[in-house]
């Protein structure tokens, strides 16, 4: 079988991404058609930078979603005799009806680079946004009272946050994400603490809102508590009686460490903004009306801080992606077979000066995703400043 030329490779890859192009086209057509009715999200489509960023991010999001149909070969299986095959080379023994070429070559144990890169997006996009979300819940739940109440609480929490921020990230990862640590109670107790915050956050949010309407309050808080604690028992302790919620111990360890590293940053931003906003007149008006402290924090201050928080959220997903890559690069946490981008770069770097393509594909993928997120954040910042 003939090898493919670069032009054919690009054509074939573009063809494989067909579902992504379709989904991307549909998203853009719908969003632009209704952009005046979509608030901040709609305004994003007024800024070219934001649109490019959003397109890149959604490209990877759809790639992760449709990864099963995009991949050409099984990302984990090895094809004998094709070690370090160059991009476009043909398979030695293609299976009946299977794909016949390595689009982006094969790596040092003859696995398909293209399929691993596509599958890697799924690993990254499964962890990074979720971990960032958790970090935000922790940062907001602690940052609001620290900024609003101040005093000893603020001093204590700020000291803890600075403590974590002063830790070199890599040292912390090396201490927390090792097979030895997995055997101790540390990941579980970390998870038990950190995963409690989303439940606390939602309960406080709903309780302060519907405090005056006990019927509704009991219903909403009850639903949150039942679902939240159910998920909590499964995710943190792996003790879900129904077995719906569970997390692989490897993944849990990585997830918890990434959340832990990210939350102090969020805490500092939220605290700073609350200290600024709490001097406004509408907060004083709320206090005069006799509104509760949590109501003011969650329903008066937080919505007014949303602009910078959304921007930071985008940037922080990018940062989390970089952190996950760092973990993979040092071979920490994830299983050695895993196709995530960081570990693939780590696999490829040993032979880098002889064969570059196995490391280059995931490196460019990671870079483009983070770039997309940064551009998106930039566009959002620009548009949110316009109001």
């Amino acid at each position, binding site marked *: 079988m003939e090898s493919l030329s670069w032009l054919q490779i690009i054509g074939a890859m573009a063809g494989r991404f067909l579902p992504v192009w379709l989904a991307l086209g549909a998203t853009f057509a719908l969003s632009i058609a209704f952009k005046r009715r979509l608030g901040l999200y709609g305004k994003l489509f007024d800024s070219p930078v934001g649109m490019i960023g959003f397109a890149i991010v959604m490209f990877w999001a759809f790639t992760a979603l449709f990864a099963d149909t995009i991949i050409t070969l099984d990302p984990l299986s090895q094809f004998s005799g094709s070690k370090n095959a160059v991009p476009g080379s043909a398979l030695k023994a293609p299976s009946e009806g299977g794909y016949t070429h390595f689009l982006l070559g094969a790596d040092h144990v003859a696995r398909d680079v293209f399929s691993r890169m596509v599958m890697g997006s799924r690993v990254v996009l499964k962890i990074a946004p979720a971990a960032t979300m958790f970090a935000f819940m922790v940062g907001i739940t602690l940052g609001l009272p620290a900024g609003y109440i101040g005093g000893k609480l603020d001093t204590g929490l700020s*000291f803890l946050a*600075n*403590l974590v921020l*002063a*830790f*070199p*990230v*890599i*040292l912390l990862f*090396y*201490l*927390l994400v*090792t097979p*030895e*640590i997995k*055997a*101790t109670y*540390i990941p579980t107790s970390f998870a038990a603490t950190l995963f409690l915050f989303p439940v606390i956050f939602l309960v406080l949010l709903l309780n302060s809102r519907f405090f005056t309407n006990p019927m509704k309050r009991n219903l909403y808080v009850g639903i949150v508590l039942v679902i939240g604690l159910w998920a909590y028992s499964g995710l943190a302790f792996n003790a879900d009686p129904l077995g719906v919620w569970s997390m692989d111990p490897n993944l849990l360890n990585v997830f918890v460490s990434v959340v832990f590293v990210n939350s102090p940053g969020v805490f500092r931003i939220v605290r700073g903004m609350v200290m600024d906003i709490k001097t406004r007149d509408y907060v004083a008006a709320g206090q005069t009306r006799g509104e509760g402290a949590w109501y003011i924090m969650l329903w008066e201050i937080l919505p007014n801080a949303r602009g910078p928080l959304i921007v930071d959220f985008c940037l922080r997903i*990018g940062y989390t992606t*970089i952190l996950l*890559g*760092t973990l993979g*690069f*040092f071979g920490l946490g994830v299983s050695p077979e895993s196709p995530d981008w*960081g570990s693939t*770069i780590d696999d*490829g*770097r040993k032979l*880098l*000066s*002889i*064969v*570059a*393509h196995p*490391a*280059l594909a995931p*490196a*460019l993928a*990671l*870079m483009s995703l*983070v*770039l997309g*997120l*940064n*551009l998106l954040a*930039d566009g959002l910042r620009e548009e949110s400043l316009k109001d």
Partner: protein
Amino acid sequence: MLKFIVRRLGVMLLTALALTFIVFYLTNLPPNLEKLAKSEASVRMSDEDVIKWIDNNGYSTSMVSRYGQWLGVLPGWVKTLESGEVRGRCIAKGSDPAAAPSYCGLVQGSWGQSTVFKKPVTEVLSRGLSMTSWLMLSVMLVMVPVALILGVLSGMREGSATDRVLSTFAIGSTATPEYVSGVIFVALFASATAGISPILADWGWISGKTLFMGTATSAMDKITFWNFALPVMTIALYGIGYIARMTRASMTEVMTAQYIRTARLKGVSFRQVVMKHALRNALIAPFTVIMLQFPWLLNGVVIVETLFNYKGFGWTLVQAATNNDIELLLGCSVVAVLVVLVTQLISDIGYVFLNPRIRLS
């Protein structure tokens, strides 16, 4: 001012103690000690032997007391084995137990023994740090001027074409972590099969196979442009974007200030306004950012030294961490934490000095 510095130093000391205790605690967890026992004595040890080894080497006492011993505020442990041999924290192997000091810790200047390198921790660390200081120095020399020039140029005329191009470059560089840019640089400039090296070799422009060297191992003996440029570029690139964006933000803010407009209306040339009026005020914020960039540089150093096989501080840290070399890892964290805290302090004090609007007390 003095009170402020004393207070900050107090908080710093507390932070350093807390951080080293956390590292001490995590490295001394039972599974880590078991791993250490197996790597030190023999891999095929029975569980009882492991417990015995841990006991005989003083790891079975309470964590807090051992931390105190490591700090040098508690006397080191001494233990007489069944065989009659006297072992202790401060007793070097084969020396006379009676002559050994009773305290030996950080305060006394004894940082312990590295189990991986079989050398005193201070020796390993000072070697690594001297290597890394060259790297850091080169990175700073490249990163700071480039970033400041880029930031000032793009912030000078907000919204101009220069601004657009430079801002896009800055965003791109912050999106490229070291392990990505390192891989791309090596593939472009230091690969015998890809990038520009094969072409240059074909034309006969370079004598070797590659333009730059893919490893920096030879830079440990003699630093040349060809073996050191790629690691330095890799670390610098990530920082450049961030500092440039901060400089740009502060420059655009200054350029819209009243006194700049006044100067322009008086007829001072644009060049003069930028150089004489705007620059100094615009550089206050980036100064803090550059100082706070140090901790992140530390990360970059670890990644780049691993990628380019340059045996400095970052490489030592990775070796210590992967082999659970407790004393060396503690030494590394003391250095790392000190770097972070001292730069924070300098950035705070420097900010006060640079900005006449801030008055303490």
